[in-house]
C-alpha cells in the first residue's frame, strides 16, 4: 500500500494526540511563568521562575515527591510479586478455579473512589472497622490506620486495585507457556520451584515489563484514593505530587504555582518514563 495511505490512516490518532499533548502543555508552561491566582484576577504579570521556586520550597514538596515514588515502587512490587505467585497458583486446574479467578480479578472493576470509601470506613475505621474488630478479638489495641500509617493505607488500597490487573495479564501469559517444556524439565529432575524459577519467571519477563509500564502510568497519577480517604494528611504524610498540585490549584486557587508543579510532575513522569519505556520498548515486538 502507498506510503500516503498509511499516513492518512494514522493521521487522526497522531494529530489528536499531538494536540492533546502540545496545547495544554504549552499553556501550562505559559501559566507557570506568570502570576496567576484566581483570587487576585488582573495581576497576570511575568514572574520568571518564581512559581517554580515557590513550589519547590513548599514544605510539602520533598515529602510529596518521596511519597509519589514510595507509592509507585511499593505498589509495583506488591502487585507484580503477588500477581506472579497467584497467577502461577491458579494456572493448574482445581475445584472451582473459574470462580476463584472471577473473585481474584473483581477488585479491578471497583472504582477508585469506592475503593477508598470501603477501605477507609468499613475496613480501616479504628472503632467500627473490620480490622479494629480483628485486633480486638485478638486482644490487641486497634490501629488507626489512616491516622497512623496513612501512606501505607493508600498503598494497600492501590495495590488491592491493581493486583487483579497483574493477575489478568499473567494468567493470559501463562496460558501460552509450553507444557512440553515443563515436562522436559520434570524429566530432567526439576522440582515445582525450579520450574517456577527457571521457566515460568523468564517466560513472564515480557508480561512483567508490560504490567510495570501500564501500572506506572496509573500509579504516578493516583489521586482519587487520596482525595477520598486521607485528603493527603495528616499533614503531608500521604500527599503525592498529583495531590499537592491539585491542592495548589483548586484549594489555594494559585494557577501559576500549580502549573509550575504540573510541569514538575511532567518532568518526573518523563524521568521515570525514560527508563521505563526504554526497558519495555526493547521488549515490544515492532
Amino acid at each position, binding site marked *: 500500500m502507498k506510503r500516503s495511505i498509511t499516513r492518512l490512516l494514522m493521521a487522526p490518532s497522531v494529530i489528536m494526540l499531538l494536540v492533546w*499533548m502540545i496545547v495544554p502543555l504549552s499553556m501550562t508552561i505559559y501559566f507557570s511563568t506568570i502570576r496567576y491566582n484566581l483570587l487576585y484576577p488582573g495581576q497576570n504579570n511575568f514572574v520568571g521562575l518564581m512559581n517554580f521556586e515557590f513550589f519547590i520550597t513548599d514544605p510539602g514538596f520533598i515529602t510529596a515527591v518521596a511519597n509519589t515514588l514510595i507509592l509507585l515502587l511499593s505498589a509495583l512490587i506488591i502487585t507484580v510479586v503477588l500477581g506472579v505467585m497467584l497467577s502461577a497458583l491458579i494456572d493448574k486446574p482445581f475445584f472451582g478455579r473459574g470462580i476463584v479467578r472471577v*473473585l481474584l480479578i*473483581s477488585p479491578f*472493576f*471497583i472504582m477508585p473512589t*469506592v475503593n477508598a*470509601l470501603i477501605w477507609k470506613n468499613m*475496613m480501616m475505621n479504628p472503632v467500627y472497622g473490620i480490622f479494629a474488630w480483628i485486633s480486638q478479638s485478638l486482644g490487641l489495641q486497634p490501629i488507626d490506620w489512616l491516622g497512623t500509617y496513612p501512606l501505607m493505607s493508600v498503598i494497600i488500597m492501590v495495590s488491592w486495585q491493581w493486583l487483579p490487573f497483574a493477575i489478568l495479564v499473567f494468567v493470559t501469559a501463562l496460558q501460552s507457556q509450553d507444557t512440553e517444556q515443563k515436562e522436559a524439565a520434570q524429566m530432567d529432575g526439576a522440582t515445582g520451584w525450579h520450574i517456577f524459577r527457571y521457566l515460568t519467571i523468564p517466560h513472564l519477563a515480557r508480561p512483567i515489563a508490560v504490567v510495570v509500564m501500564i501500572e506506572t502510568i496509573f500509579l504516578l497519577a493516583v489521586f*482519587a484514593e487520596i482525595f477520598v480517604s486521607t485528603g493527603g494528611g495528616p499533614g503531608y504524610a500521604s500527599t503525592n505530587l498529583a495531590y499537592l498540585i491539585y491542592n495548589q490549584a483548586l484549594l489555594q486557587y494559585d494557577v501559576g504555582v500549580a502549573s509550575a508543579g504540573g510541569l514538575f510532575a511532567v518532568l518526573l*513522569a518523563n524521568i521515570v518514563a525514560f527508563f521505563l519505556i526504554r526497558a519495555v520498548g526493547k521488549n515490544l515486538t515492532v
Partner: protein
Amino acid sequence: MTLNQQRKLKTLITGLFAWLVALLLFFPIFWMFITSFKTELQAISVPPSLFFEPTLDNFKVVQDRSDYLLHAMNSVITSFGSTIIALIIAVPAAYSMAFFPGKRTKDILLWMLSTKMLPAVGVLVPIYILFRNNGLLDSRIGLIIIFTLMNLPIIIWMLFSYFKDLPKEILEAARMDGASPWGEVVKVVLPLSVGGIASTGLLSIILCWNEAFWSLNLTASNAAPLTAMIASYSSPEGLFWAKLSAASTLACAPIIVFGWFCQKQLVQGLTFGAVK
C-alpha cells in the same frame, strides 16, 4: 502414598489456598454488598453482624437523594461513547502500523505511549480553562473527549499487538485471492480480530467507568458519572455506612457484572503483544 494420591493432595492444597486468598481479596466487595442491606445501626455494630433482616431502604434513599439513574446514564454514555470513538480512530492507525510498518513506526508507537505518561494534574488547569471557555464543563461531550484521548494510546497499543499477531500468510492468501486493501480489512482482518477488539474495548470501558480525576474536576451535577457521585458521599455521609454501601454497590454493580460476564474475553485478551 501412591503418586496419584500425592498429586491429588497437592491439587487439593493448592485449591484450598487459592480459595482462601481469593475470598480474602474479595471480602471488601462482599462486605460492601452486605452492608448495603443493613440498617445504619447494624452497619456499625461491633462485632460485625452477619445475620440480619435485609432492607432495601438504603437504595431508595440513594436514588431520591442523588438521582442514581442520571449518574449511571452518564457513566454508560461516557464510557461506551468514548470507547467506540477511540476504537474508530485507533483501528486504522493500529492496522497501518502493524501491516505497513515504516522505519519510524516503533518510535511513533512509543511516543503515543509516552503521551499517556503526561500526568493529568500537569495539564488540569489549562484543560479546565479551555473547557470553561468552550462551555464543555459539566458536559458529557467534554468528558467523552477527555476519555477518548486518555485511552487512545493504550487502545492503539493493544490493537497493534493483536494485528501484529495475526498470521501474515492468511492476509497474503486474501491478497492472492483478489481482495483489495479495503476488502482485506473488512473481510479478513476485522473478523479475525473481533476477540482482540472486544477485549480492547472492554478494558477501555472499565478504565473510563472507573476514571475519577477528570470526572471529579470537570463535572458537577449534570454530567457527573458514578465516580463523582460516590465522591460526594465521602465526607458528609461518611458516617452513614449503609447508605454509602448502597450507593457504592449501585455504582460498581454494572461494571462488575459486565466484567464477570466478559472475564474470559479479558483473560484471553490482555496480552499487549507480550505473549509469543
